[in-house]
C-alpha cells in the first residue's frame, strides 16, 4: 500500500474512529485501526464488536493494500505533525510514514485478523438533517438508565409515526421525549417502525455527525442499523456507524405522560435554574429541594435544608393557575431537564405532591421532560 494524504484529513478521521477502541482486553487487535484503500480514498475502520465505525478520506492512492496498527500511537503521532502532506506506505506488518523532514515506522498486526464489520444491506432507509437530528438526540440521550437491570431502558427509543419521529429516554425517575418532524427522503419506512439504540451508539452518533453539514442516512434491518454521511466529492460515504439494536419491547411510555394538571406555572428559566443551584448547596445527601407554589400569591418559594449545613429559602414571581402545592425534587433531575431547554421561559405542570410533573419550553412543543418528585417526608 502506498498513499499520499493531507494531514488534516487523516487527523479528522482518526478522531472519529478512535473513541470506541481500547475497551477490549481479550482481543488486542480491537485497539487497532484498519487502514485500507478504496478507489481514491483511504478508509479507517475500528470496532468494539458492538459498534463499527468507518471513515473515508480522499487520498492519492499509488498502491492498494491494507494494514492494522494501534490507533493511539498513530493518532498521537499525526496530531503532533506540522507538515501538510503525509506519505503512507505499508510493508509486511509495519507502517511507514514519511514527510519532508521525518521518517517513522509503526509496528502493526496482520489485517486478516481484524474483525469484519457487518454492513446493513437494506431498502429501508430514512434521511435526516444531521445537525438538527443530532441536536435533538443530545437533548434526551443523557436520561437513559445506566444500569443493565432493564436492558430496554439502557438505550434510546426511536419511534416513527406518520411524518414525525419521537426520540425517548428514561431511567424511570424522569423521561425525556423529543419530537422531530421528518422532512427528508425515506424509503420502506412504515408508520409503526421503532427500535432501541444502545447508549454508546447514540453517543458516537452525536460525536461523529453533529457537525456534518448535510443529510445523514439511516438504514434499518431487524437487528442492526447503519448510519452514513456523504460528501459531494466521492462515491464513498464520508463516515459510517454500524450498531446492534437492543432486543426487547420499550414500555408504553406515553401512558406515563400526564395530560391534565392540577397546577400550571410559567417561569423564567435562567432565574429558576440559578435558584435551584443555590438551594442545591444546602440539599445535603438527599439532593432534595422543595418548591412551595402558590398561584394565588403568584410566587414560588424554593428552599432546602440540611442538618449539617444550614438552610436557604428564596422567592420568585411566577405566572400560575390551579391549586397550591408543596413538592420536593432531586435538584439534579430538575436542573438537568431545564438545562436541555433553550427557551427563555419554561412551563412546569404538576399533579399534586406525589404525581409526575412535566417541564416544557414555553415556545417549543417538540420537547418535554417528565419528572417524579421525592415523596414528602
Amino acid at each position: 500500500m502506498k498513499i499520499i494524504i493531507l494531514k488534516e484529513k487523516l487527523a479528522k478521521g482518526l478522531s472519529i474512529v478512535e473513541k470506541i477502541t481500547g475497551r477490549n482486553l481479550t482481543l488486542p487487535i480491537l485497539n487497532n485501526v484498519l487502514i485500507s484503500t478504496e478507489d481514491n480514498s483511504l478508509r479507517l475502520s475500528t470496532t468494539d464488536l458492538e459498534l463499527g465505525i468507518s471513515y473515508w478520506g480522499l487520498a492519492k492512492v499509488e498502491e492498494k493494500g491494507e494494514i492494522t496498527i494501534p490507533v493511539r500511537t498513530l493518532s498521537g503521532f499525526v496530531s503532533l505533525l506540522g507538515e501538510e502532506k503525509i506519505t503512507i506506505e505499508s510493508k509486511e506488518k509495519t507502517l511507514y510514514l514519511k514527510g519532508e523532514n521525518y521518517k517513522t515506522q509503526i509496528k502493526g498486526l496482520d489485517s486478516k485478523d481484524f474483525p469484519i464489520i457487518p454492513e446493513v444491506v437494506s431498502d429501508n432507509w430514512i434521511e435526516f438533517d444531521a445537525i438538527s437530528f443530532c441536536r435533538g438526540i443530545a437533548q434526551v440521550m443523557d436520561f437513559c438508565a445506566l444500569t443493565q437491570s432493564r436492558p430496554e431502558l439502557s438505550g434510546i427509543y426511536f419511534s416513527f409515526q406518520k411524518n414525525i419521529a419521537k426520540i425517548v429516554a428514561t431511567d424511570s425517575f424522569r423521561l425525556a421525549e423529543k419530537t422531530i418532524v421528518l422532512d427528508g427522503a425515506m424509503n420502506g419506512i412504515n408508520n409503526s417502525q421503532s427500535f432501541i439504540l444502545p447508549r454508546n451508539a447514540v453517543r458516537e452518533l452525536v460525536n461523529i455527525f453533529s457537525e456534518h453539514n448535510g443529510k445523514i442516512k439511516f438504514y434499518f434491518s431487524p437487528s442492526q442499523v447503519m448510519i452514513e454521511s456523504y460528501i459531494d466529492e466521492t462515491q464513498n460515504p464520508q463516515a459510517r456507524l454500524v450498531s446492534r439494536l437492543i432486543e426487547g419491547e420499550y414500555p408504553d411510555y406515553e401512558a406515563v405522560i400526564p395530560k391534565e394538571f392540577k397546577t400550571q406555572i410559567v417561569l423564567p428559566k435562567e432565574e429558576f435554574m440559578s435558584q435551584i443551584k443555590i438551594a442545591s448547596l444546602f440539599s445535603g445527601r438527599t439532593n432534595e429541594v422543595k418548591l412551595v407554589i402558590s398561584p394565588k400569591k403568584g410566587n414560588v418559594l424554593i428552599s432546602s435544608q440540611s442538618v449539617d449545613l444550614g438552610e436557604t429559602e428564596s422567592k420568585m414571581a411566577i405566572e400560575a393557575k390551579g391549586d397550591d402545592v408543596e413538592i420536593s425534587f432531586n435538584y439534579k433531575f430538575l436542573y438537568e431537564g431545564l438545562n436541555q431547554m433553550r427557551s427563555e421561559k419554561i412551563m412546569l405542570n404538576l399533579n399534586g405532591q406525589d404525581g409526575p410533573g412535566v417541564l416544557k419550553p414555553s415556545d417549543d412543543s417538540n420537547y418535554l421532560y417528565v419528572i417524579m418528585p421525592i415523596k414528602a417526608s
Partner: protein
Amino acid sequence: MNKEELWQAILSQIQFNISQANFSTWFKNTYILSKDNGSIIIAVPNNFSKEWLEKKYNKLILSGLEELNERVKTIEYKVINIPAPQVPKVSNKSGLVTVNQLELEELTLDKYTNLNPKYTFDNFVVGPFNELAHAAGWAVSQKPGLAYNPFFVYGGVGLGKTHLLQAIGNKVGEQFSKKKIRYVSSERFISGVISAIKNQTIDEFKNTYRNFDMLIIDDIQFLAGKEKTQEEFFHLFNVLYEANKQIIISSDRPPKAISALEERLRSRFEGGMITDIGTPDFESRIAILKQKIQEKKTGISEEVLAYIASNIQKNVRELEGALKALAAWKQLHNQDIDLELAKKILKKTINPQPKGLNPQKIIAVVADFYNLKEKDLFISSRKKEIVKPRQIAMYFLREELKSSFPFIGKKFGGKDHTTAIYACEKISKEIMENEQLAGEITVIKEKIYAY
C-alpha cells in the same frame, strides 16, 4: 451424538487451530440451533461473530464436521440476540438516591396486560381479614371464567384490593400465557370511553375490550354517575360474561352501596362472588411488616415493628409508609433505630393532626359519596335519599368535630337541636345493627381524612 455434544466436539478441535483470544471472542455463546438433512444452523450472538465465522472459520468448522463423520452440505449462521454484556458500573452515583425518590410506576407495567409484575400471590400476606378473598381469588386464578364470575372484591383504602386483583392477573398470565388479560383502572376506562366517543372510534374501542379473555377493573365505584360509560360497560360485561370470560371487579364498598349505579349493573355484580377485605388484626400487621422488610432488606427490630403495628391499624399502605420512613432515616444517618427514635421519626405518621378539618369538608365528602349536590343536604326535604345523608353528615359533625347540637341544627337549615340529637343517635344505633351502613361510614370517614 446430539447437537450439544457435536458442537462440543467441534469446539474442542477448533481450539487447537486458533489463538485463545480469537477462540474466546468468536465462539463465545455459539451453539447448534438445528441440524437436519445435511444442513446445520449455528446460532451466533451478534453480526460480528456471524461475519467472522462465515468468512474465516467456515472451512475449519466444515472439516471438523467431516472428521466426526457428519455429512453436512451447508452451514448457516443465524444471529440469536443475547443481552449485551453487563458493563460493571465504575462510579455508583445513584447510591445517593434516597428511598423516597418516586418512580414512574407505569414503566414497570406489562405493555399488553397493564399488570404490574411486582404484585403476586407469593407476597400477598394472608390473615383472617382477607382469607376468604384470597381463597376465592386463588380459585379464580386456577379456573378463570369458571370458578366465580364475576368476582367482586371490596374493602377500604390501602388494604390490598389492587394487590389481589393484579396477583390473580399475573398468576393467570403465568399459567395460561395465551389468555389475553387486561387490567384497567376505572378512570382509564372512563377516559377511554370518552376519547372513543370524541374520536368516533367507539366500535374499535368495543372490539379491543371484547377480545380479552380476562378483564380486571379496579375501583369500579368511580363509574358512579357516568351513565354513558356504565352503558358501555354493561354491554361489554354481557358479551364477556356470556363467552365465559373472567371478569374481576374491585370497589371501596359493596355493589349495594354504590350510589348512582344502574340497577342492571348492580344486579350483575351481585350475580357472582362478592367478598370483602377487612382491616388486618395485630398478628397480620406484624406479618405484613416482616414481609415488607424482607423485600426492602432493611433490618428493623421486633420491638419497633410491634410499635408500628399497634399504632397503625387501618391501612396497610400506611404501615409500609412508616417502614419506608424508618428505612430512609436509617440510610441517611447510618444509625440503628431503637424504639425511642422510631417514636420520634413516626410522630407525624402516627398522630396525624387532622389538618384543617371543617364542617364544609365533611358535608362535601358526604354529598359526594351519595352523589348529591352539597346544597341538597340543606333543603328541607323528607325524601329518604336526602334524609339519610343529612343524618350521616350530622353524625360526622358531632363525632369528628365535636360540634354542639344547636350548631349542627342551625347549620342544616335552622333545624332544632333535638333533630340533630335524634339524627346522631339514630345513626350510632344503626351502625351496630346494619353492616352495610357501617361499611359506608368507614369509607366516608377515610375519605374525610384523605380529603
